[in-house]
C-alpha cells in the first residue's frame, strides 16, 4: 500500500454502499482475470485446429484419399478417414468459436461494468483509492 500526501487526502467517509461498490469491483476484476486466462487457452486451441485443418487439406490435395488418419479422441488415437477427420475438426472449430464468442462478450460486459464503478469510486475518493492493475 502506498502513502499519499496530506493535500491529496479526501474527507469522504466510506459508506456501506461504497463498500459494496468496491467489493463488486474486486469481484469483477477477479472474474475478468479468470476469463482472460481461459480465453487465451481456447484461442491457442483454435490456432492448433487451424493448423490441423490446413494439414488435412494438404493431405487431401496429395490425393491420399484411401489412407487413414490418426485422430486423437480422448487420450488415444483412432484411425479414421480423412473425410471423417476433417469433419470432426470443423465441428470442434465451430464449437470453439461459439465458446470464444461467449467469453469475449463476457469480458466486454465486465469491462463496461468495471469502468462504470471506476467513475463512481474515483469520483468520490479521487487519489485515495487505486483501481488499476499493477
Amino acid at each position, binding site marked *: *500500500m502506498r502513502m499519499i500526501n496530506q493535500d491529496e487526502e479526501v474527507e469522504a*467517509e*466510506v*459508506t*456501506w454502499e461504497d*463498500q459494496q461498490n*468496491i*467489493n463488486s469491483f*474486486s*469481484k469483477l476484476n*477477479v*472474474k475478468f482475470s479468470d476469463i482472460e486466462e481461459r480465453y487465451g487457452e481456447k484461442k491457442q486451441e483454435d490456432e492448433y485446429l487451424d493448423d490441423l485443418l490446413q494439414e488435412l487439406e494438404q493431405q487431401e490435395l496429395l490425393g491420399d484419399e484411401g489412407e*487413414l488418419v*490418426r485422430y486423437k*479422441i*480422448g*487420450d*488415444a*488415437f*483412432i*484411425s479414421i478417414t480423412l473425410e471423417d477427420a476433417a469433419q470432426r475438426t470443423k465441428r470442434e472449430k465451430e464449437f470453439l468459436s461459439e465458446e470464444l464468442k461467449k467469453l469475449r462478450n463476457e469480458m466486454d460486459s465486465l469491462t463496461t461494468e468495471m469502468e462504470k464503478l471506476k467513475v463512481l469510486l474515483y469520483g468520490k475518493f479521487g487519489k485515495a483509492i487505486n483501481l488499476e492493475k499493477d
Partner: protein
Amino acid sequence: MLKVLKSGLIEKSSSDSSEEVVTNPRGIPKVQFVENVEEYMSKTSSTIEVTLGKFQETVAKYKFMELNYTNRKKGLELKIPEIKKTLTVVEFLISTQDSDESIETTFELNDTLWAAAKIKSTKTVYLWLGANVMLEYELQEAKELLETKLTTAQNSLNCVVEDLEFMREQITTMEVNIARVYNWDVKRRRVAKTTQSEKTLDMVE
C-alpha cells in the same frame, strides 16, 4: 463462544459481537463492516494496535481459506476435461458399435510409448472409478454415468467459484476497514500533535 470456521480454524468471538454471525450458503462467515470508525473505536476498549491486529488476523484467516479453495478449484478444473475426454471416447464407441469393422487405434501404453491395437465393435466398456476399482458397463450406461459425473463436477466447481467470490468480498471489506482505522488513527495523532504544539506555544508566550 467458539466458532468453527470452514477450514477448521477456531475463532473466539469478542464480547462486542453479540449478534448472530451471518454466513453464506456453505457456512463461510461474513465480516462486520465498520460503518463509522470514530463510533467503532469509542465503543471498543482495545487500543488501535490491538484492533488492527485483530483485523489483520481475520484477513490472514480468509486468505488461508481462499488458498485452500483455489487449490480445490484447480483440482476440479483438471478433473472436468478428463471426464469430457472419456465421454467423447464412449460416444465414439456408441457411434461405431453397430458397424462390423474393427477400429484401428494407437494408444498410450506409457509415457512416450504407444502401441497399435485393433478393437472389435463392442457393447460394453470398462470404467475406472478410482481407488483401484474398475467396472464393466454397457455403452449407454457408461455414457449416462459419465454425464452425471460431469454435471456433479461442474456444480461443485460453480459452488467453489461462488465461495471464492464471497471470500474475496470479505477480504476486501476487511482490508478497507483496516485502511480506514489506520487513516483515522493517523489523523487523530496529527490533531493531537498540533494541539500539543499549540499548548506549548501558549505556555512559552
